[in-house]
């Protein structure tokens, strides 16, 4: 007990601190200060601004709004959560605080969580006598969930300014767990560009005059946070034809030795077969590139011709006087630790034979160094060939998966318009859902953030494999009492954030039909007002959000039904609160994005910490009992 007491007091202290800082932050909140309060240790600084002050000036109004929306959403979400919980009183004030400090990475929630867990350990809901296996599974889920939440507490976020080709820029908050794909979805929402597969988030380095497109599966925060503070590197959002060219025209990479003419009009069927052969087998086959390239000697100014060969295991060249036989090859570099970058104007900078150069370097290296491998090709096409080949060798099948999901998304967004119309015309229950998503989808950051956790696969409850359900049930996060199918309850966005607890009206459980909630309510909100964030437990809700429902079976995790239920029951979910104001009648299904945009559905992710609060208790105690059990067995 002493321990607990001590811990509790610790926690209280911490919360005090937090509250204080909250006050401080509250003042500055209207200003977009948050980005400029970096926690030195955590390297949370903004990217794309030369200095922090400048960054503030650079921010467009829109961006500020959006950022603020994020922040506010967090707070309100937390508050809402807390008001609905019977959690200890103390933590409440602090909780929003911790969320608020997003820019400085938040580690605060953790103590709170644990305190909750110990102080108020709501016994696991043993109400339903289920089979042992089920329980086991539930426990496993919970343990995972708990671990997940612990991780959640440490999420790092960056404010990133992204330049767009037309000279404008967007600023967004990127969270450590978001993939580039998530960020791009976010950008699609913001820029209203067509979502074709060529869009790409790129990084540039003016010192080295390099440019590289991030791969969709990559994490954005990690590479950006290794940039130096005074960096002039930029993040650019642009279309790059070469990004997925290999999947549209595999023959020009895999059959590059054949004459170009015959390749031009290759049948789609043959292309597919090529992809199948090279990307769908037990191991990815790398294009058998070989030929003369120029290599800049380590630390020297001269470029020497060498005969290079690409293999899955690395980039090789055959030394003078030797054959091309594998055993004689010399490995220039293996791809585990390096990335490949396009270079600009190296004829000037490094006296390269041509301007078609690429380099291989560790992502953290930002300046000229002997550890960078400089290569130069005769023409642009050769360069594309090699760079793409190296990407295939490095990323393998992942690249193909990225492409497939990009295509799905693009297709989804293209057909979206049609679908909405259909949906609205068939006034059946499911129809509203997609709309709801639209509304959500257009919300700038939050959507993305929501996705983060989902895509990460880190999310605890394994998604049920209801792949092709187009409209994932809207955030069943804090599901009403377990019996009611979680999906039915329309949960999330109630205008008045604080009070309205999550589960508004538990409508009679209708078999898995998605909830009828007319989304448009969002549209009617005052533009800058943020609806409370959908509780994040269901990453799914968020996931489905972004671009309408291109149901992409694999990427998007449908909401895990079971988990929320456990959760709810565990937390002793409050009885459904009085029905919230009935959702406004389905307003015009598609509002112009503009209006909707600001109605950012809250970032689920940030809300997670709150989850930890209430449920965390159960989970932790559950966890401990589980462990004890296990130990005693041994």
């Amino acid at each position, binding site marked *: 007990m002493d*321990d*607990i007491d*001590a*811990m509790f007091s*610790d926690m209280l202290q911490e919360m005090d601190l937090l509250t204080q800082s909250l006050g401080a932050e509250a003042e500055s909140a209207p200003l977009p200060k948050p980005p400029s309060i970096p926690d030195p240790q955590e390297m949370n600084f903004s990217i794309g601004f030369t200095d922090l002050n400048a960054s503030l000036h650079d921010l467009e109004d829109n961006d500020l709004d959006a950022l603020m929306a994020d922040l506010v959403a967090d707070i309100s979400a937390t508050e809402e959560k807390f008001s609905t919980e019977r959690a200890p009183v103390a933590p409440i004030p602090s909780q929003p605080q911790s969320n608020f400090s997003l820019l400085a990475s938040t580690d605060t929630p*953790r*103590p709170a969580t*644990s305190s909750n867990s*110990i102080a108020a350990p709501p016994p696991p809901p043993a109400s339903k006598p289920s089979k042992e*296996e089920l329980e*086991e*599974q539930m*426990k*496993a889920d919970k*343990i*995972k969930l708990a*671990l997940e939440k*612990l991780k959640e507490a440490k999420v790092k976020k960056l404010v990133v300014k992204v330049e767009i080709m037309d000279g404008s820029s967007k600023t967004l908050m990127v969270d450590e767990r978001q993939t580039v794909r998530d960020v791009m979805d976010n950008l699609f929402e913001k820029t209203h560009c067509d979502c074709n597969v060529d869009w790409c988030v790129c990084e540039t380095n003016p010192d080295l005059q390099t440019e590289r497109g991030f791969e969709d599966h990559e994490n954005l925060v990690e590479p950006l946070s*290794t940039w*130096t503070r005074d960096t002039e590197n930029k993040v650019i959002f642009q279309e790059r034809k070469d990004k997925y060219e290999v999947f549209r025209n595999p023959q020009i990479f895999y059959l590059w*030795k054949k004459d170009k003419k*015959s390749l031009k009009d290759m049948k789609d069927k*043959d292309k597919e*077969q090529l992809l199948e*052969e090279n990307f769908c*087998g*037990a*191991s*990815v*086959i*790398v294009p058998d590139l070989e030929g003369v390239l120029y290599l800049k000697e380590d630390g020297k100014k001269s470029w020497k011709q060498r005969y290079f060969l690409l*293999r*899955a*295991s*690395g980039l*090789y060249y055959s030394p003078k006087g030797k*054959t*091309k*036989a*594998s*055993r004689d*090859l010399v*490995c220039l570099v*293996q791809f*585990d*630790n390096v990335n490949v970058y396009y270079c600009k104007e190296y004829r000037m900078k490094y006296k390269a034979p041509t301007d078609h150069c690429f380099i291989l370097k*560790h*992502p*953290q*290296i*930002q*300046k000229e*160094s*002997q*550890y*960078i491998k400089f290569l130069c090709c005769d023409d642009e096409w050769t360069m594309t060939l090699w760079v793409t080949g190296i990407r295939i060798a490095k990323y393998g099948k992942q690249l193909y998966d990225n492409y497939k999901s990009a295509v799905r998304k693009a297709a989804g967004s293209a057909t979206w318009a049609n679908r909405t119309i259909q949906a609205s015309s068939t006034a059946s229950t499911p129809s509203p859902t997609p709309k709801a998503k639209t509304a959500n989808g257009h919300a700038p950051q939050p959507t993305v953030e929501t996705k983060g956790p989902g895509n990460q696969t880190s999310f605890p409850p394994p998604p049920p494999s209801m792949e092709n359900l187009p409209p994932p049930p809207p955030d069943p996060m804090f599901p009403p009492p377990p019996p009611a199918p979680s999906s039915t309850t329309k949960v999330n966005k109630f205008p008045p954030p604080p009070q309205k607890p999550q589960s508004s009206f538990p409508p009679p459980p209708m078999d898995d039909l998605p909830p009828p909630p007319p989304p448009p309510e969002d549209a009617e909100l005052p533009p800058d007002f943020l609806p409370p964030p959908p509780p994040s437990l269901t990453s799914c809700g968020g996931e489905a959000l972004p671009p309408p429902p291109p149901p992409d079976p694999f990427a998007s995790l449908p909401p895990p039904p079971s988990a929320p239920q456990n959760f709810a029951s565990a937390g002793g979910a409050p009885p459904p609160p009085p029905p919230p104001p009935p959702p406004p009648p389905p307003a015009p299904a598609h509002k112009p994005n503009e209006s909707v945009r600001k109605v950012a559905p809250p970032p689920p992710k940030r809300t997670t910490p709150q989850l930890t609060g209430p449920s965390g208790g159960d989970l932790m105690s559950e*966890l401990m009992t*589980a*462990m004890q059990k*296990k130990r005693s067995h041994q």
Partner: protein
Amino acid sequence: MTSHGISIQLRMAVWDLSVSVEELGPEAPPLKISVTSDLHIGGVILKVVEKSRENKKDWSDHALWWEQKQQWLLKPSWTLDKCGIHADARLCLTPQHKPLRLVMPSGIVLRMKVCFSSSVFRTVMGICKLLNIRRPEELSLLWPVEEKKKKKDKDFGEEVYDITCAPLPSSTIPKLANGMPAFFAETPETEAVYKMLAVSQPAPAPETIAKLYRTINITEKAHINSRWLDSSRSLLQQGVKEFDKLLLRFKYYTFHDIMPQADVVRLTQLYEQARWAILLEEIECTEEEMMVFAALQYHIGKVSLTEQFVASCPAMEDLDSALQCLEVKMEGESSADDMLETMTAPELHDYLKIFRPKRLTLKGYKQYWFTFKDTTISYYKSKEESSKEPIQQMNLKGCEVAPDVSVAGQKFCIRLLIPGPEGMNEVYLRCEQEQQYSRWMAACRLASKGKTLADSSFSSEVQSIQSFLAMQKTTPSNNTAQTDESINTHSLVSPRYQKKYKPKQLTPRILEAYQNVAQLSLTDAIQKFLQIWQALPDFGLSYIVVRFKGCRKDEVLGIANNRLIRIDLSVGDVVKTWRYNTMRQWNVNWDIKQVAIEFDGNVNIAFSCVTADCKIVHEYIGGYIFMSTRSREQSDTLNEELFHKLTGGHEAL
């Protein structure tokens, strides 16, 4: 008068047919039985059995073999007349299933009964069924290389595992018991045999490799392919005799639908075949790749010793790992408060020596007090000053870690290449002894992958480093095969590298590659090995020396699962590639032994085969086409008829 006419005239005439019975021994004179031409084969067998006076024996597996024509008489209802058998025919009543010494890809020799009367394709199916190898169509039989040296090798007397007592594959459908076919579960001996098949063999002694190794050029590789048996004819027809030795190998390099759970033997044997191909340089790879293969072999060998195939339910594994992970984190904690503490990573701290080659200071290691926390190393002047600002901090995330170790010299250094904006910073850490080294090395490796000391893999990482260090302790002179922990690194690489590097030099190279695979499970490691093997540029190519029509010199035809390539024999360069999906048709002219292929766009090629029968080329091409017709959805039914249609010789048409 034609012979046909005679047979009609003598229709009812009785004549003597001589049939030898194998069971009576080779010396015994053939039995003479009186038959008429309309007696059917079944009747002949019956008469022979009666006459041989061994009625009690089970004759059900016996059939008549016509020696002169080299063919089986398997249709019991056919009459002698229909078969074309006359008084001059010498028939032999012999069992259809005979024992054979079968050399598995792993080198194990099995003595087992196989079918000598059905097509090799079907015989292989039977073998695979017994051994629990799925997808038998990918395998086939070939003659071993004649052993030239007949000196004292015979003394060795290879070990043969006898499973001739196994039920004939056709008679029973194998049922699984304890994860193996029921037959194997019957006795401890057979169970041991199955384990031999299902678990990869320990690394061979370097001299074993050296003995089998021969520098082979592409022509010699082509000769290997001349030894394949004809899939559409029976073993006996192809001159295989009882107790002959044949190799069972994966022939078509397209491994369909591998399921690690169901394919234990298949995967293991596939791995063995791949491993030997690499050790003997039947397929070329680069030095870097060789090191990765060596690391994987070492790892697989090590894990095989401990890990057995255990089936467990994935849900439980998840829970277990979650709990384990948590337990590691909570280890030794009693109070909740402490528990929170441990959520932050534990630390390492010690006096170590550091050396930074880049700085032009005196070459030497300086001692500092080091702490390792999360993924960061900090060092201080002394332990007492560790509360102050560190002299330097190094975040190892994303760095390269390499060992610089000599157990004999008691040198335990860790070489770090730490990326920074300006480039890579090279740093050496010197530890005093093994224990310390293993812990710091493990921490560095985890940190380079962004994991902290709290990660559950830390202790296993420490262990694997220690066991690898143990490798160095064994004296390289004793060329023994892999035993428990100790191993000679020479047994992991091909003789070329055995010559090039001493074990001392080899070990760090392998260790470097090993750190990337050390955490793989047995099946993952095997699959990784196979993946890298399959990604080699020359993977899956079977060579045949051919002479293209209109050309004067021999060239090499490479046959892969999706293409044919034409290779210049002298240089080894690929001259031309044809893909099957542009192939319109291929024809074999059996008389002049020429294969002609037509591709889209009026491309026609024709060649005669120099090192192999054109049936082998034909079968390869047809076989790969057949393999490509297999779909994932298809159930396990094997379309044997289609296979023979695609690969059969002229007699099939």
